[in-house]
């Protein structure tokens, strides 16, 4: 039974105790994750409180550092597990120094702030017990905090563990406090540990402190970030509000404790879910209203009107109405209408609306005992964008315009945050009592490595702009191209004349590139996806080199059905072009050039190269992507070059269950790539460098324990004598640090080739940041590379420069990209499969870039 079906089944057999209305707490603080917020938040969570004490006690009795960290959910935990994986110590060549040396030094401003602590700073961890025992975390906290002994101390408390920055007078302290009802409760506070500032537990406590501080600055937590709803950016035309905010983190970088903040926006729809649904139904008509609503809404996060919580919509229960009753926690039955009137003075206007169903994650135990919350659409607001909205060009443009910040604008936001933190009385008090000093913004020195030359067939060119060398390419012959002799074009009747003129154009631009295009067979069909597919099925034979489809609209079903058929069922490279693209007057030549280049690649051609000093090098890109169609499935893509020049690419792709380890298919893929190399070069590559993208928080350990051994075994089995040397690098496009260069009074994006390998890196890793892209608007974000395995022993300098070189080799874009080309190819491949074909592509296409 699928997850959805389970939800449904549960929805039908609703036991009264299972359903509840969106957690009836009048509590104003956001949904919080275990300890991380326990102190800053006042939400008393009764979910599973009966288990809280035993559970915590269990965690504590073993009394080691791992436990406190392990007990709690959320990001911190996962990040922590990654940080405990110290890969650098195993890499002898970088143990002492992981910094490169080439290039021109450049001074960079970061979005990291120094956090200073006194030398002898300690965190004191206490264990608190109550007699008689009390379950409510809030009450436990209230009782403890009302004691004068603690009132002016810096403290963080999750109901069991208390952290203080000052030692209490006695190791074991007995206090008593009274509840509002007059019950006397005895509290025993026992010192369990003294922790130095470098302890991971301290990082966790610092994160809590900053969460508290941001809340004091009137920010609200949604997910992991903090937003300020009082200063929204409005896009009324699209009914959107953007809340400005920050992603924050506190972490130990090389030698210092740093606070990092990056500007973030939360998109909110200025309409209730009910309005959204009503509109959707008007638009689509009655017949498919329910399906459309479910399709659009399920999986989205909503914000409730009356409290500060967010919920994920897991289902819509059309059989429940606001006039139905549910059972409150005290056992009484009440209708939803009456409940909201009584509790929040809210009058529901639509008594026929269905309810949204959200499964509540039980934070403390992984029992099958999943609870549901029923939410009234009228009282919910959508956060984020519904899937289809992201394809709305106008809307996305409007959002991008509002959220794109220039380097200077970004810096101003940061400066204001720092200023607010330092000026706000409560925030300052919080920092001071903990002994923390919020210092200045950190600057560091990076290096700009030399720019690369692009090798084309007859000459080497030094592009005018590293961002885009399409102009330099225009008159040059590409490295190699296959002639296109037998091919098929399918278009609608209406598009016949544009198609003709486009084909002329294609031939004209093809010639100077060295790409010969013969006259294709043109089929005219009706304007529907089935007609296109039918024509393909009918006319494609093994002789056909390529199929081009001139699509009448960007309706997804055209593209999906064509790609699915031609990449799996009947493997032939295909090229889809939107008819409306061909109507753009005056741009025909550049459009035709782009398409011609893409077609050459799909036929196995090579466009350009860069100089690679390593003579026998295989680079591999691996990416993982969730399947858009079926939940619980992921697509793993693997791309490797098959020639030393790094211009020909071999690819493999597989769909597998989320639960399966990615590693399972890697050995097969790697062996396939080595076989291909062997066939091509009559030997094995001397070195293999794997760029692994799509790694989530906390997966580092899995990579090291499962994926690398798989790759290694494939490599060692490939040869009986000297097997290729392997390096594995984790690539992350999303990372918190940003780097800007100061020029005069203003700030700018650093030039491409900027490498940062100090200051913002981690002492336990062999890591670096590389900016390999150029942008004219907005702020660039660096890509983060973490070398987790390295047999090759290349100097850091060479590793960095090689990575930069590889960012030049993505054939879909004559310019630099933000990740090494194999990663981008792997991404493109997984995206095609995850979004369109949902089927493994045929092996016959493995040697061409059919997925471009």
């Amino acid at each position: 039974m699928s997850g959805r079906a389970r939800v449904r089944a549960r929805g039908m057999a609703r036991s009264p105790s299972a359903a509840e209305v969106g957690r009836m707490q009048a509590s104003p603080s956001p949904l919080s994750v275990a300890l991380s917020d326990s102190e800053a938040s006042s939400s008393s969570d009764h979910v599973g409180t009966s288990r809280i004490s035993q559970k915590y006690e269990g965690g504590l009795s073993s009394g080691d550092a791992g436990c406190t960290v392990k007990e709690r959910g959320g990001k911190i935990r996962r990040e922590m597990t990654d940080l405990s994986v110290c890969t650098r110590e195993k890499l002898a060549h970088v143990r002492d120094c992981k910094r490169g040396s080439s290039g021109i030094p450049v001074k960079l401003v970061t979005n990291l702030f120094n956090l200073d602590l006194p030398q002898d700073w300690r965190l004191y961890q206490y264990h608190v017990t109550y007699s008689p025992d009390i379950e409510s975390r809030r009450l436990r906290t209230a009782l403890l905090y009302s004691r004068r002994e603690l009132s002016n101390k810096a403290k963080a408390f999750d109901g069991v563990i208390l952290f203080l920055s000052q030692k209490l007078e006695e190791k074991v302290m007995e206090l008593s406090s009274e509840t509002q009802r007059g019950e006397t409760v005895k509290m025993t506070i026992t010192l369990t540990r003294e922790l130095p500032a470098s302890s991971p537990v301290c990082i966790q406590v610092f994160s809590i402190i900053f969460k508290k501080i941001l809340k004091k600055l009137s920010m609200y937590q949604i997910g992991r970030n903090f937003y300020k709803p009082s200063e929204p950016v409005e896009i009324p035309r699209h009914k959107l509000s953007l809340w400005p905010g920050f992603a924050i983190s506190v972490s130990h970088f090389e030698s210092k404790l740093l606070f990092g903040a990056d500007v973030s926006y939360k998109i909110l729809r200025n309409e209730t879910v009910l309005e959204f649904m009503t509109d959707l139904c008007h638009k689509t008509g009655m017949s498919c209203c329910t399906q459309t609503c479910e399709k659009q809404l399920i999986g989205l996060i909503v914000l409730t009107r009356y409290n500060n919580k967010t919920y994920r919509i897991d289902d819509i229960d059309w059989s429940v109405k606001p006039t139905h009753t549910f059972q409150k926690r005290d056992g009484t039955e009440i209708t939803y209408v009456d409940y909201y009137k009584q509790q929040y003075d809210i009058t529901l206007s639509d008594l026929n609306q269905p309810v949204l169903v959200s499964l509540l994650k039980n934070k403390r135990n992984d029992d099958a005992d999943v609870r549901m919350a029923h939410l009234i659409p009228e009282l919910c607001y959508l956060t984020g964008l519904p899937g289809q909205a992201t394809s709305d060009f106008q809307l996305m443009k409007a959002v991008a315009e509002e959220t794109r910040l220039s380097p200077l604008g970004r810096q101003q936001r940061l400066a204001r945050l720092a200023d607010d933190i330092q000026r706000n009385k409560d925030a300052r008090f919080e920092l001071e009592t903990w002994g923390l000093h919020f210092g200045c913004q950190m600057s560091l020195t990076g290096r700009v490595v030399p720019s690369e030359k692009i090798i084309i067939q007859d000459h080497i060119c030094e592009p005018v702009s590293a961002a885009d060398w399409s102009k330099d390419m225009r008159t040059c012959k590409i490295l190699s191209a296959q002639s296109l002799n037998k091919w098929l074009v399918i278009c609608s009747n209406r598009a016949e004349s544009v198609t003709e003129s486009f084909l002329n154009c294609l031939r004209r631009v093809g010639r100077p590139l060295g790409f010969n295009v013969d006259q294709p067979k043109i089929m005219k069909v009706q304007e529907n996806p089935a007609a296109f597919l039918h024509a393909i099925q009918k006319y494609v034979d093994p002789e056909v080199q390529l199929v081009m489809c001139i699509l009448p609209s960007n309706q997804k079903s055209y593209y999906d059905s064509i790609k699915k058929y031609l990449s799996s069922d009947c493997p032939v490279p295909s090229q889809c072009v939107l008819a409306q693209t061909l109507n753009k007057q005056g741009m025909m030549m550049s459009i035709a050039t782009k398409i011609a280049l893409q077609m050459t690649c799909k036929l196995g051609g090579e466009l350009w190269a860069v100089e690679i000093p390593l003579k026998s090098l295989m680079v591999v890109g691996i990416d993982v992507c969730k399947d858009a169609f079926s939940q619980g499935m992921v697509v793993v893509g693997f791309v490797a070059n098959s020639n030393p020049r790094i211009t020909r690419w071999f690819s493999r792709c597989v769909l597998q269950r989320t639960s399966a380890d990615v590693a399972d298919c890697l050995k097969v893929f790697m062996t396939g790539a080595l076989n291909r190399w062997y066939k091509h070069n009559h030997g094995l590559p001397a070195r293999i460098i794997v760029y692994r993208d799509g790694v989530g928080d906390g997966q580092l350990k899995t990579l090291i324990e499962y994926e690398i051994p798989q790759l290694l075994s494939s490599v060692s089995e490939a040869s009986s004598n000297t097997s290729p040397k392997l390096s594995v690098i984790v690539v992350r496009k999303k990372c918190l640090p940003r780097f800007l260069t100061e020029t005069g009074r203003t700030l700018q994006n650093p030039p491409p080739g900027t490498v940062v390998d100090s200051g913002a890196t981690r002492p336990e890793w062999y890591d670096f940041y590389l900016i390999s892209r150029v942008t004219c608007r907005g702020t660039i974000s660096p890509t983060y590379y973490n070398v987790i395995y390295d047999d090759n022993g290349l100097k850091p300098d060479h590793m960095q420069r090689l990575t930069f070189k590889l960012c030049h080799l993505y054939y879909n874009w004559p310019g630099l990209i933000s990740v090494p080309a194999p990663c981008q190819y792997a991404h493109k491949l997984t995206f095609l499969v995850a979004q369109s074909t949902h089927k493994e592509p045929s092996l016959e296409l493995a040697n061409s870039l059919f997925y471009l």
Partner: protein
Amino acid sequence: MAENNIECNIVVDGNVEEVPNKKIIKFNPPLYKQRYQFVKNLVEQHQPKKVADLGCGDVCLLVILKYQKCIEELVGVDINEGRLKWNGSRLSPCMGDHLDPRELDLVITLYHGSVLEKDCRLLGFDLVACIELIEHFDSEDLAKFPEVVFGYMSPAMIVISTPNSDFNSLFPSTVFRDSDHKFEWSRMQFQTWALDMANRYSYSVEFTGVGEPPAGAEDVGCCTQIGVFRKKAKATESAVLEHHGEHVYEVIYTTSYPSLQQMNYCRRVVTYLVYREVHRMKRRCQVSLRQHELEPESADPGNPTRKFISDLPVPVLTEADKAMEMTPQPFCIGDKFYVPLERIIACPRLRHICGNVEKLREFLADVVELNCDGSAVKVDLHDCGDY
């Protein structure tokens, strides 16, 4: 109503259940909730603008009252600073309050201080609640208390609740209900004190209570006795409102809610309402255009969604809709869709906020595109944002 129940250490909303461990009387809803409900009812009935809770403790009552639309100022006073600090954030606006702001401003402030001290920021209130407060005073403090609350603060209404010791006969234990209680009064004692205070400070007083006695023991009265005091003369109001006294309380927490009284929020809400109305009319227009082309669909009667959907395309005409039908119709010119402001203002909520077309136009200036004479909102008939 009281009922027998052995299980009693139930924790609700972070409060320990009213009845201590070994008791067998349990109230449903719990007694403390009944007291809060009583105050909430008073607020609903009398619509006070400024409300204070003296001895607010964990701010539970304030959390209930913050949802009341009539209140514009809510104050809590307590001597336990730690508690106020810890609970303050429970009173901050929700994220939803920014998306759908209140009608009226609301400022909530928590003060650390003793209710036996005078602070001019507590002058001019409409309702002051002293729930389970006076029994914690020793005789000296009890003597000072009326002078501060009745004499100095002198709000329009005061509600005082305290345990009824007559009811204690139903409890097995003979001690006070709370070890910090300095006294527990019988109904007679409380009423004598209350009438005396009412006379002295020209208030009228009514007595009531919550926590009804079990059947057969009606003569002991309610578990909690309540006196509701109302000020007789309102003539001194202007004198009372002079805010030049001392500030002795320390502000622990303060927050201000977004509301339609604030121009930026008001403008936002008006803009979105206008877009919503225009969008709705546009949809209706598009649907009617489409219905010309399509056959009416036959809905499956067994489909549970039918009811919800069926009233979408053909809404029942309400009074408001009828009023709207009287106004100028929206119209199309080319691919533009126009909705006259006259029609938009017929939307009850917008009429309520803006009042008239001129005001509406003012709100929309520079934000929404109007036609050349400014009489109608202009949008594209076919939005590219159709998804």
